[in-house]
């Protein structure tokens, strides 16, 4: 299920997705070793770290159970047995503020953790970094290139490649 949800969050499209980047294995490792990648608690000692890790692990496992229970009551199947549309509609309820419902706090917390783990797991792999074009993958540069159009200091000439419609819709 972790692998499936990770791929829903970062799917394969013009670049590889979470599955190809081995994100599920990463999440299994991090959850099993109780290493959270988010959360605001101050860690001042190993005890704090253990405490925080235990809490994250418990919430994550609770979240998986909640997802399945929710799917059973809504759709009559466990999460993985639901149709892609059903899975998608549940994730949307957990992902978008406009679709939040009062009974989904546990699921929202699970989705937040799951997304954090997936994004971290994906963009700390070589394929993830390559999908962004992370320049630091190259470790020797003859000089720092800097801006290639300093004659337009406001950079007003820059036009975003492709359509901006998707962005405007998601913003409104």
């Amino acid at each position, binding site marked *: 299920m972790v692998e499936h949800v990770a791929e829903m969050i970062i799917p394969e499209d013009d670049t590889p997705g979470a599955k190809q980047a081995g994100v599920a294995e990463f999440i299994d490792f991090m959850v099993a*070793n109780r*290493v959270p990648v988010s959360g605001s608690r101050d860690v001042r000692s190993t005890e704090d*770290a253990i405490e925080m890790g235990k809490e994250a692990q418990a919430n994550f496992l609770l979240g998986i159970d909640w997802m399945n229970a929710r799917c059973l009551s809504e759709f009559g199947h466990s999460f993985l047995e639901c149709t892609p549309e059903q899975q998608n509609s549940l994730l949307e309820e957990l992902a978008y503020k406009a679709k939040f419902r009062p009974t989904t706090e546990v699921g929202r917390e699970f989705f937040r953790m799951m997304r954090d783990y997936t994004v971290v797991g994906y963009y700390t792999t070589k394929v993830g970094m390559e999908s962004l074009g992370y320049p*630091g*993958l190259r470790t020797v540069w003859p000089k*720092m290139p800097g*801006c290639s159009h300093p004659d337009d200091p*406001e*950079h007003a000439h820059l036009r975003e490649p492709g359509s901006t419609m998707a962005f405007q819709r998601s913003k409104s």
Partner: protein
Amino acid sequence: MPMKMFDAIVVGTGAGGGTAMKILCEAGLQVCAINSGPRTNPATDYRRHRQAYDLKYRGYGDPLRLKGKAHQEPYSVEESEYSEGRDLFEHDVAYSNAPGTDWYWKRCKGTGGKANFWGRSSARFGDIDFKAADLDGFGENWPVDYAEISPWFSKAERYMGVASTIQNRPSNPDGEYLPPMPWRCLDYIIQKGAEKIGVPYLPDRCAQLTVAHNGHLACHYCGNCSRGCDVGSFFSPTWFTIPEAEATKNLTLLTNALVRGVLVDENGMAKGVAYVDRTTRKEVEVYAKVIVLAASCVETAHIMLNSKSRHWPSGIANSSGQLGRNLCDHLYGGPGYGYLPQLLGQPATPDNIADSTVTWMPRWQNLKNPREEKFIRGYSIYMGGGCGEFPGHYGQIEGFGSKYKREIKRYYPTPVGALIQAPALPSPNNYVDIDPEKKDIFGIPQLRFHYEWGPNELQMWEHSKQVMIDLFKAMGGEMWGADAEPNRPGTSLHEVGVCKMGSNPKTSVTNKWAQAHDVPNLYICDASIFPTITDKTTTMPIVAFAMRTCDHMLENFKKGVHKRA
């Protein structure tokens, strides 16, 4: 077997101590340098072009790695999973915070200290700093002025290699510079906005070798600087001062030797130091004609406060009672972050391959009139952003799926954020002393911090948040937010003041040569002598003042004030 007598002992091998031992060794003195931790080895201890995927925990680290240590708080930035298992950072020796104090004391005990991992910003202090009391009436001037220090800043800059430009600003005097780093797209956009609101946006003074310098290689821009440079393309003791001192054959370098106190003779003058050998846990004494303390500011005060004797019941050279007082730090925090819509969807650009403060906003407040703002003196801001190692902006975007993934990439070149560097004014509430009860695992009484941010620096913090709101508007940016609170004190690693220099022995610990008023064969070569913190960073000035102090000390050897061993 009795240890041999040295001409000088230097405690600490960081920016100040490393400089001192190099100069003294090159002058022919027999020097014993004492370092608290092990030898730093770039071949094993640094990042060495590794990426997050080379690490087991992808940079998050084993949560149990500090289990059983006396000080288990992990240190951010310099200490990371890349340095795990290398014992460069201090977790065996604990310290205390007084009630209400939340000091974050990061300590690097490997040779070279924190100066192996420093941020490289290297501006000169000016008379606006040295003579601030004349301008606004608060506190005291430094015992030195710009005319006196300026040649030493030049020496330090020529030695270290600092990249910048001539800027003719009243708050930060110009120096001798290597070619500056080129600006990134985001710099041009921010600069235009800053200009509209009357804020300077200029190349930082960055001690990073944009060209080969004094036999050191030019930077190859791998971006790993804050985890240590593999080839020595910025000033660090490991690549500069320590090998040069060793080449003279006049250096004896002791490692894993934690100094607990300065030893005194029958007249109360320094005659050596006592240290605990971390491996054997035995106490050892070493003797010299002159002692130089450069243990990293508050640790220097810790050693001195723990050096109690019949002559110095409250710590060596503390007849003024000023030892440990006057602790000042830079208030750090993020007064604003957001993104530049101009850069949405642009191809990834190598914005952070220099891993440095390419630019800064040098102090612009209270320049025409020292009291034009609600606070006195002033602060500086560093801005950064662009395509980083990890798309930290992912949390700002809602959703999941292909569209979400595209949005992460679309925003990738756009994030920008600010870091304020605001000087805290000296306050009687801010000091270190010895914890009356707690001792560390070696039986050494612990250092205790008393510290709170004062109203002046908190006013600067509020001011900077408004500046960021104005700046984002002026540069056409969108703000995501600002830190609710400044960082914990200690975060900047720029603490100063606990052994302040001054002309009056009744109100200061050292004279203007950083020589203890009470104990003339005891010198200090770190930031503890700076009476105030400015809006600039401390490393280059530490090197410059250490050079000057050592020059004075060598004169004293020549004149016979100090005898050779």
